[in-house]
């Protein structure tokens, strides 16, 4: 079979990819910010001993950790509007799914971080007259956050990759644009390879930085 | 007497750091040699070069009068599979035992015989039980290492090495990681081995063991052999300032009158 290599179209259409990448970056920025801040709140609630705080938080985490994110996105796109009467745009549906999913995953990371702190730190806080909230935010959290930083960056990388799922509900992002170019120009090899490379080029340095960060933190711990 | 192990101007470098600066050592069959020296003197490295856990940077190791490795244009090449067979003949016991935690005591001792020597199950089991008897632990055959005391672990490690029928045994600070009250049982086992005529090279800080058991004591300092002689003479009348200081550091040890 004769295949006409066509990389020219890819370069000529760089604006199409760039437009898609902007969509990816927007989706990533929104979901990672809301997801990780929301996750912090859920994670702390999960740590509290009060059943009215811990149980709803636990239920939330279990639901969104134990269902596929694609199911969540589709549910928010097709089912949620019927339930609430609120129309969800592709962006809103995907952002909701990815954000809630990220909240659930990062909540568990924060919780593990808080739990990893030595009990003596809580006692030391108490001993100098701090209340629970003061000890949590001034003594425990600074150390816990530093400890979970690598896990959070890893989660961030997953969130970035997850943004491609928004294409399933026709949100305009990088993969969606690649599909568009492939369909218009009949050059699937070039266009899909290009999108894979774009993700690799963006994420590879971040992954390497995460490894470096892990090493630095490990050394600091010793 | 026949010579069993000999090293010839053995050098070992780790990057810039020269740990061994030309060691000439000869050990005869049945001899017990103790290597003394402060940490960083190169004694452990010397031991690890004899069974090629570390490859010497230059110089040669002879076993039964035959040089290990093949020399081409002044460079000695070591063939890994040949080194494996060398290691079966040169047993080694470590400071931290290095027993296999997922195997019982018996399986630990059988492992090398089965996998490396390809002995059949019955033979290697019989052999293992014999070695366990030698170190006085037959009743622990079915236990996992995590259930043993440090002293017992080390005796199992000795049995594991003995089961390979080595010509010479290397002991690398085998009592350093033990609680003081457990040191005795391991030294007793080693002494018994020496009495049975096993050829042994021991790195240790137990001066009492050196004094009573060793045929010869070597004092290593900064990668060279500084003093050498029989223990009675060398431990009582050290010639060098360095060795005097070293012995003073072990002042807890009282030489018998």
């Amino acid at each position, binding site marked *: *079979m004769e295949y006409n290599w066509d990389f020219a179209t890819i370069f000529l259409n760089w604006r199409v990819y760039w437009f898609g990448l902007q969509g990816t970056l927007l989706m990533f920025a929104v979901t990672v910010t809301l997801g990780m801040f929301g996750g912090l709140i859920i994670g702390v609630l999960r740590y509290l001993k009060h059943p009215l705080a811990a149980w709803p938080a636990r239920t939330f985490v*279990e639901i969104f*950790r*134990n*269902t*596929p*994110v*694609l*199911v*969540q996105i*589709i*549910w928010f796109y*097709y*089912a949620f509007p*019927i*339930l609430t*009467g609120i129309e969800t745009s592709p962006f809103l549906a995907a952002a909701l799914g990815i954000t809630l999913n990220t909240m659930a995953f990062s909540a568990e990371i924060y919780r593990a971080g808080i739990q990893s702190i030595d009990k003596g730190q809580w006692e030391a806080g108490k001993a100098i007259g701090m209340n629970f909230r003061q000890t949590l935010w001034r003594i425990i959290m600074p150390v816990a956050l530093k400890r979970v930083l690598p896990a959070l960056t890893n989660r961030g990388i997953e969130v970035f*990759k997850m943004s*491609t*799922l928004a294409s*399933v509900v026709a949100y305009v992002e990088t*993969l969606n644009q*690649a599909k568009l170019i*492939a369909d218009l120009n009949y050059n*699937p*090899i070039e266009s*899909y*390879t290009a*999108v*894979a490379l774009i*993700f*690799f080029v963006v*994420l*590879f340095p971040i*992954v390497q930085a995460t490894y470096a960060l892990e090493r630095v933190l490990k050394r600091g711990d010793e | 007497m026949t010579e069993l192990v000999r090293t010839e101007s053995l050098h070992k470098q780790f990057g810039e750091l020269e740990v061994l600066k030309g060691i000439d050592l000869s050990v005869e069959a049945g001899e017990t040699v103790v290597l003394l020296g402060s940490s960083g003197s190169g004694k452990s490295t010397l031991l690890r070069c004899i*069974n090629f*856990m570390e490859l010497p940077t230059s110089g040669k190791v002879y076993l039964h009068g035959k040089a290990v490795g093949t020399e081409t244009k002044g460079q000695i090449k070591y063939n*890994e*599979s040949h080194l*494996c*067979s*060398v*290691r*079966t003949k040169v*047993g080694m016991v*470590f400071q*931290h*035992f*290095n*027993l*296999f935690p*997922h195997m019982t005591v018996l399986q630990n001792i059988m*492992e*090398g015989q089965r*996998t*490396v*020597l390809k002995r059949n199950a019955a033979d290697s089991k019989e052999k293992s039980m014999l070695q366990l008897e030698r170190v006085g632990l037959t009743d622990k055959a079915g236990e996992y290492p*995590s259930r043993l005391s440090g002293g017992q672990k080390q005796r199992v490690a000795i049995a*594991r090495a003995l089961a*390979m029928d080595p010509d010479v045994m290397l002991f690398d600070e085998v009592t350093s990681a033990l609680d003081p009250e457990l040191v005795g049982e391991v030294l007793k086992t080693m002494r018994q081995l020496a009495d049975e005529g096993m050829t042994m090279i021991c790195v240790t800080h137990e001066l009492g063991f050196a004094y009573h058991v060793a045929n010869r004591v070597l004092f290593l300092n900064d990668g060279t052999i500084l003093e050498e002689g029989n223990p009675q003479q060398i431990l009582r009348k050290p010639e060098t300032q360095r060795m005097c200081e070293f012995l003073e550091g072990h002042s807890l040890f009282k030489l018998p009158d």
Partner: protein
Amino acid sequence: MEWDFTPALNNIDILLLGLVNTLKITGLSLCFGIPLGLLMALSRLSEFRPLSMLAAFIIEFFRTTPPLVQLFWFFFAFPILFNVNMTPFTTAIVTFSIQSSAFFAEIFRSGIQSIDRGQWEGARAIGMTRNQSLRRIILPQAVKRMIPAFMERSIELLKTTTLVSTIAYTDLMYQANDIAQKTFRPLEVYTVVALIYFVLIFCFSQLSIVIERRMARSGEGTVH
């Protein structure tokens, strides 16, 4: 708005058929992905530089590109490039085997590296070769520590298989789309499907938590 689950429940057999396909893809991808992951981990740990760098590149590439992009690449680009026929089913198996093997490789690697150096030395001292040490001494200990991470990754894989619906393989997600369209009851259908996924994945993750706890109690370390 009124809930009406009858259309969804009437088609439950179709949904369950999709579930079987979901499990089939997950299972087969694990069968290929785990051995492939071990192979890549060993290549990456190899002292032969070109091999270890190649393995590192493949692992990093498949870890940093989105699985949906990989799936599309194998479905649309791969068949033309190599002139082979790729059904949605084979595409799914190929993609998810390779994708998960990259993650399994890292689990294997951290498992192997978590074993104390003394174990290698102990094995070498009784004359074992590198291969014998790895097979008889290191891997049996490492694999035990890796079980929780393995299970976690397998659960991730199960969730990722929903992507095959986008290339029209009839997994649970695809069947859900199909029935939602036909019955005009997306709310109930997608809710039921979400519930099926939830029960399945929740059970698996509870199981992995139990195993991890039991291992922690027996003093066995784990790696992630």
